[in-house]
């Protein structure tokens, strides 16, 4: 995904609805050919950002460029982007073929070429045999593929997808995610994908844009964002994590040390710009905790096992520390290792590399 110039460039984008700020000072570059997901809780402005790019809303201040051109005065029908709507917005008075052909028809493409392109697109989304069905005769997954085909057949530079899988059940969703990746490779278009499902974001994207209350909180590759969240919000929103309220006790060349009020000590190899006695939050993922003392440098805490949830290849333990706070531990199944049972006393261990120290909100 080596990008030369960004296909979309948003600078200082602010959008107000009356006195309400839906988007505040957004700066974002979207690279040619990537899958970028906008991730964030409901109401954080994801749809609004899409609608700005598609041309259904105008920025209150700031600029949006597509392919180096400021699009402020270009109406939606002349922008090189196509959108897959949150509820599909398929035309109920047209059948599948006519829905997909709509864009080409209004642009005046000759009938022969149009029919060929539509049929090729229907083949890609595997809906050839449904060409003459009306929309109300389709399942949710089929509607979703029609919506995708209807947008992609126009060969957009950028495809905007607003929670395209939200209405589908888990099984079809996983199938459609794979489809989406395949279609992305096949068409080479840039995908901007909205979701508030973190799994979707992690599976699909080259980069994730995490949003909160109209602001961009962090833009990163999924693995980076998961391993190195830059805020407490990011740590909590993406994946599951344990948060400890601590006070810094030492900052020096070998890292930072912090301690909870009950005396549990955390050491991170990162040297923060904070000073001792400042408050800081520590985040450790459940899968970074273990009951095995494998690493001589490991840090540890005493605990009592409360509850175990078995989930096939892994189990989730809820343990209680001395200060009664609850911590989740994920254990990968391994017949050779002995694991504690509910009520047992145990010790949890973790490595310095898995300690993430974050400013408190």
């Amino acid at each position: 995904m080596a990008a030369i110039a960004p296909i979309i460039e948003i600078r200082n984008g602010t959008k107000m609805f009356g006195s309400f700020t839906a988007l505040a000072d957004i700066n974002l570059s979207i690279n040619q050919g990537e899958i970028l997901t906008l991730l964030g809780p409901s109401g954080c402005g994801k749809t609004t950002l899409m609608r700005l790019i598609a041309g259904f809303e105008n920025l209150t201040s700031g600029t949006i460029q597509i392919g180096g051109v400021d699009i402020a005065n270009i109406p939606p029908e002349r922008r090189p982007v196509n959108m897959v709507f949150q509820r599909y917005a398929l035309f109920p008075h047209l059948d599948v073929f006519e829905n997909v052909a709509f864009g080409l028809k209004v642009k005046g493409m000759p009938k022969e070429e149009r029919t060929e392109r539509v049929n090729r697109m229907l083949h890609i989304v595997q809906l050839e045999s449904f060409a003459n069905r009306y929309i109300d005769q389709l399942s949710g997954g089929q509607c979703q593929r029609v919506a995708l085909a209807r947008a992609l057949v126009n060969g957009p530079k950028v495809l905007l997808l607003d929670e395209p899988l939200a209405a589908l059940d888990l099984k079809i969703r996983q199938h459609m995610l794979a489809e989406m990746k395949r279609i992305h490779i096949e068409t080479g278009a840039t995908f901007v994908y909205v979701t508030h499902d973190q799994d979707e974001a992690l599976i699909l994207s080259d980069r994730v844009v995490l949003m909160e209350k109209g602001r961009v909180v962090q833009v990163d590759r999924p693995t980076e964002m998961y391993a190195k969240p830059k805020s407490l919000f990011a740590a909590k929103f993406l994946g599951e994590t344990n948060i400890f309220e601590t006070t810094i006790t030492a900052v020096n060349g070998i890292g930072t040390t912090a301690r909870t009020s009950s005396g549990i000590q955390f050491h991170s190899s990162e040297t923060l710009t904070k000073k001792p006695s400042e408050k800081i939050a520590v985040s450790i993922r459940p899968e970074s905790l273990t009951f095995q003392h494998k690493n001589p440098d490991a840090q540890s805490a005493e605990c009592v096992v409360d509850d175990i949830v078995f989930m096939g290849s892994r189990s989730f333990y809820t343990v209680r520390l001395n200060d009664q706070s609850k911590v989740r531990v994920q254990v990968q199944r391994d017949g050779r290792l002995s694991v504690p049972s509910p009520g047992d006393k145990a010790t949890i261990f973790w490595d310095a590399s898995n300690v993430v120290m974050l400013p408190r909100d």
Partner: protein
Amino acid sequence: MLLRILVWAVLAFLISPLIVIVLFSFHSSPALSFPFAGFSLRWYAELFNNAQLGSAVMKSLTVAFLTSVVTLLIGTTASLAWLRLGKVGRGFIEAVSVTPIALPGLFVGVSLLVLFAQAGLQLSTLTIVISHVVIALPILIVAMKARLALFDPSLEEASRDLGASQFQTFRRVTLPLIAPTLISSAILAFAVSFDEFVVTSFVAGTETTLPMYIWSMMRRTVTPLINAISTLALLFSILILLGAWLISHVRRRSAVAARIES
């Protein structure tokens, strides 16, 4: 069980007058009461030989047709505005359009009469049509509103997004989708106009519509002709409704058939 009997009783109450009228329109004697003496088409024959009645029917059809065309034009424009308005705008249209429905016909008739007099407008077919539009439009808007609420505005956005201009979007998306609503609304306007009596009697001048003709006929004697006229009117209404249903039904099928053939 009791509920079921009640339902049938209500239905019988609603339908029995219709059955009696249809039955007696074929009665071979002028008597309007049982026992039934036998079937004949004499009242229908008499109807078709009555020139005055014929011209009243033509007048009513003309007025109803003009009313539904004008109402439809205004109604379409209003419904397009409605789709684009916010809560406040919709509330305003609703308030303005519902009020006239609640006004007594007597009051509307007198007001219109005064208005036409002040405007120096001769009472004629034109004034009847204007009055009928005034009466039908609010009913039409109320009827349309419920169905337009189901219109999904994101369909228009999808159309623009796919490259259609504002006009293309209207022609290819908005209009086809609201057409059934418009057609059924036009039929409603036609029906309202066709049997309007109270207001018409104020603003008709020397013109005579069908309801006015029936009224004047009844004042002289109650003749079995009334039954025949009513039966024809009933048949006419059923045909219109059937037609409207067929139009919306057939369009879809023919669209598919046309493409499969080509």
